[in-house]
């Protein structure tokens, strides 16, 4: 071999993960294929719930948390399905797997991109729900954002793993929610409870237990899913 003209060193996990995140977000920014459908779904769902709502029977602060988490969950699934789907048409996933990066870097890169996608949809949905259902969130917006972010990390951690598992199957769009939703439950339950209490004007200290549960699930899901991801790949 002639002397190599290109210096190289094995990229670190974080650098590789961030490169994958940047690439995925750039592709989504260019195509806007999923973000638009997720936002359209969110707006439509908020509107449907609003017109089905009887304000004399259910108070807005009791309905809004449920509406919010239904939207977050299902709009998130749209993005999660796309996560590894973008690698399939030209088998770009083979190039990714052939690169000298740890499998965990691929998982973390996808996870961060999915988290970015979910946060964008939430940033649109949360004010929309607050506005339409007349729920003033100004007094507890920071703890509410904290709850939403913690829950999103757990949802995306599990969803990214399952997205990788089902992407090459013929029934991927059906299998992803079927597999992921049962694992979403331990995250959505405390998140919805914490959101309901905050919207009902309860003190932040009353939701600290739920925040701890969410934090614990995040750690467990992140560690377990990162360790399991390499086993989802064809070897």
């Amino acid at each position, binding site marked *: 071999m002639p002397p190599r003209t*290109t210096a190289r060193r094995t990229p670190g996990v974080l650098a590789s993960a961030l490169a994958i995140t940047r690439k995925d977000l750039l592709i989504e920014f260019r195509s806007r294929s999923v973000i638009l459908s997720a936002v359209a779904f969110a707006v439509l769902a908020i509107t449907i719930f609003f017109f089905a709502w009887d304000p004399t029977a259910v108070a807005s602060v009791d309905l809004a948390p449920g509406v919010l988490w239904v939207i977050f969950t299902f709009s998130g699934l749209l993005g999660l399905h796309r996560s590894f789907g973008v690698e399939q048409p030209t088998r770009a996933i*083979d190039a990714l797997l052939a690169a000298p990066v740890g499998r965990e870097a691929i998982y973390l890169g996808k996870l961060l991109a999915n988290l970015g996608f979910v946060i964008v949809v939430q940033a649109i949905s949360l004010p929309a729900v607050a506005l339409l259902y007349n729920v003033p969130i100004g007094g507890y917006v920071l703890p509410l954002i904290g709850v939403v972010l913690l829950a999103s990390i757990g949802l995306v951690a599990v969803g990214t793993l399952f997205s990788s598992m089902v992407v090459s199957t013929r029934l991927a769009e059906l299998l992803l929610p079927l597999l992921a939703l049962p694992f979403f439950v331990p995250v959505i339950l405390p998140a919805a409870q914490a959101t309901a209490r905050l919207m009902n004007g309860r003190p932040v200290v009353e939701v600290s237990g739920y925040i701890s549960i969410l934090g614990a699930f995040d750690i467990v899901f992140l560690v377990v899913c990162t360790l399991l991801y390499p086993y989802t790949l064809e070897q």
Partner: protein
Amino acid sequence: MTLAPAAEFSVTATDLVRSFGSRRAVNGVSLSLSAGDCLALFGPNGAGKTTLLRMLGGLLRPTSGQATIEGVALPGGVELRARVGLVSHQTMLYDALTARENVEFAARMYGVADVRQASQRVLQRLGAESFADLRVQSLSRGMQQRVSVARAIVHEPSLLLADEPFTGLDAGGASALTRMLADLRDSGATIIIVTHNLDEALALCTAAAIMREGRFVRLDRTPIPARDEYTALYRELSVDAS
């Protein structure tokens, strides 16, 4: 079977086996290649060519047997994958990104120190500079394949694995790709190319093998029989047999 007489091999494989359930897709392949060798692999569909390539690329674990790439044993992990480039009939490119963005992304994945400079250099080398800033989805099949090769060699791999790279290319595109691969071979890289295109592959290779049912049923090194003779051999050993 040994191809290279030299003691120092770039690629070696000994009794390499890969099974899927009870079926042996690759069934005891042995080979040795030196730097600058180009092995053309022919054979009917299902002969195990792609499986062999995927094992050498670190994408599949061998069921048994050993192989090394520049002394790194399979499956080898990141150390092995850093030495290999992969080209396929599928471009493995992102349509929404430009040619340059695709190549730069690959350079980052391989830890290339100066991503921009390396990408620019390889795009220039493959004559892709004029359309480097166009999105891949707007490029012709031949242009896309050129970018795909650029993506695969931006880190200057020691071994290039090409799985049916001529598929979908017209005669001009196939000739251009042959020239690119010959240039790469002459620069010292080892190439293994899986193809049904005998004309292009025989013009390029320093060794040729015919695979059937997971095994090499014939292996030649330079001088490889003339095209007509080899075509007849190929037909006899693979097409008729299948």
